C-alpha cells in the first residue's frame, strides 16, 4: 500500500515537471512568434504599470458583444476599443473609480462584471443566503421531529408484541 502511494506521488511529480517544461516551451513560442499573439494583445507594449492597471480594470468590465467574457479575456474589437479608452484615461491621470464610472454612465451596471448591491439586485446577492437559511430551518425541523419520534416509550402491549416477535427472554427488559 505504502509502496503504491510512493509510486503514485513519483508519477505525479514527473507529470508536473513535464507540464512545466511544456508551459515554458509554449511561453517561448508565443514570445518568438508575434503572429501567434492575438489581436487584442498585439497592442504596442507601453508602460508596464499602466498595462497592469488596464488589465485589472478590464477584468472588472464585461464585453457587451460577447456577454460571458470580461474585456480582459476578449479579443473582440469592442474590447480592444474599451482597453484603448481605459489606457487613455489612465494616461490622463484618471483614477480607477472615475474610469469605472465613465463606463457605467455609458453602458449601465451591466458592464460591471460584479453587479453592485442595490435595491434591484438584493435577491441576486441575498438569494443564496436566503436559500441556505431556509434549508437549515427545514433541516432543523426535520431533525427535531425525528428525535421526538425516537424518544417515545413503548407501551406494555407493544413491548409484549416485540418480545414475542423477537422470541427472546422476558428477563431482558431494561
Amino acid at each position, binding site marked *: 500500500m505504502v509502496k503504491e502511494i510512493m509510486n503514485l506521488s513519483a508519477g505525479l511529480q514527473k507529470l508536473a515537471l513535464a507540464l512545466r517544461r511544456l508551459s515554458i516551451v509554449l511561453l517561448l513560442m508565443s514570445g518568438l512568434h508575434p503572429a501567434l499573439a492575438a489581436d487584442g494583445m498585439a497592442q504596442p507594449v507601453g508602460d508596464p504599470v499602466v498595462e497592469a492597471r488596464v488589465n485589472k480594470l478590464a477584468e472588472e468590465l464585461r464585453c*457587451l458583444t460577447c456577454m460571458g467574457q470580461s474585456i480582459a479575456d476578449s479579443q473582440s*474589437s469592442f474590447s480592444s*476599443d474599451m482597453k484603448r479608452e481605459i489606457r487613455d484615461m489612465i494616461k490622463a491621470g484618471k483614477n480607477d473609480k472615475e474610469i469605472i464610472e465613465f463606463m457605467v454612465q455609458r453602458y*449601465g451596471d451591466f458592464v460591471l462584471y460584479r453587479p453592485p448591491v442595490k435595491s434591484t439586485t438584493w435577491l441576486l446577492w441575498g438569494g443564496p443566503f436566503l436559500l441556505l437559511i431556509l434549508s437549515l430551518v427545514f433541516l432543523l425541523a426535520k431533525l427535531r421531529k425525528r428525535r421526538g419520534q425516537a424518544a417515545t416509550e413503548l407501551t406494555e402491549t407493544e413491548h409484549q408484541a416485540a418480545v414475542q416477535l423477537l422470541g427472546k427472554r422476558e428477563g431482558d427488559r431494561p
Partner: protein
Amino acid sequence: MRRFLFPLAVFIVLAGFLAAGLRLNPREVPSPLIGKPVPAFRLAQLQASDKSIGPEDLRGKVWLLNVWASWCVSCRQEHPVLIELDRQKKITIVGLNYKDERLAAINWLNQHGGDPYMVSAVDVDGRVGIDFGVYGVPETFLVDKNGVIRYKHIGPVTAEALKTKILPLAEELARG
C-alpha cells in the same frame, strides 16, 4: 403521494423562471442614457468631409441617430426601412458611420438603394460610439427637441418597431 407535492411545486416554479429567462433577449441591454442629454460631439460629414455636424445643429428638431457601418451585416436588413422612412419625410435621420472607411461607406450606400440620412457623421475610431454606449451595430437613438435621448432601439430598425414605438413617440415629442 403528498411527499412528491413539494418537489413538484419547486420544479414548476423553477421551470417557470427558466422559461421566462429564455424569452429575454440578452443582447438588449437597457441604456442608461435614456433621459440624458445627447453626448457632445463634432464630427466630419460623410458626404462633405469639409463640413462638420454636431447635436447643436439639430436643436429644435426631433431626430433619429442611426449607428451604421458598411461592414455591418444587419444594417442591410434595416436599410430599406430607413429609405422608406426618409421618403415619408416624417422625421430627420442622422447617421453615425461607425468605425468605417469613407469610401467603403459611400459605396455601400450607393449599392444598397441610396442615402436615407440627412447627414452622416464619421466616427472613424469609434470614440463617439463609446460615448453613446454603442456595443453592436445597428443601434438607433430617438432624440427630442432639447437634445435629450428618449428611446434606444437595439438591432435593425423594423417597420413594426417604427409603427408601434418609434414614430408614435416621435410625434408626441414633436407636439410637446
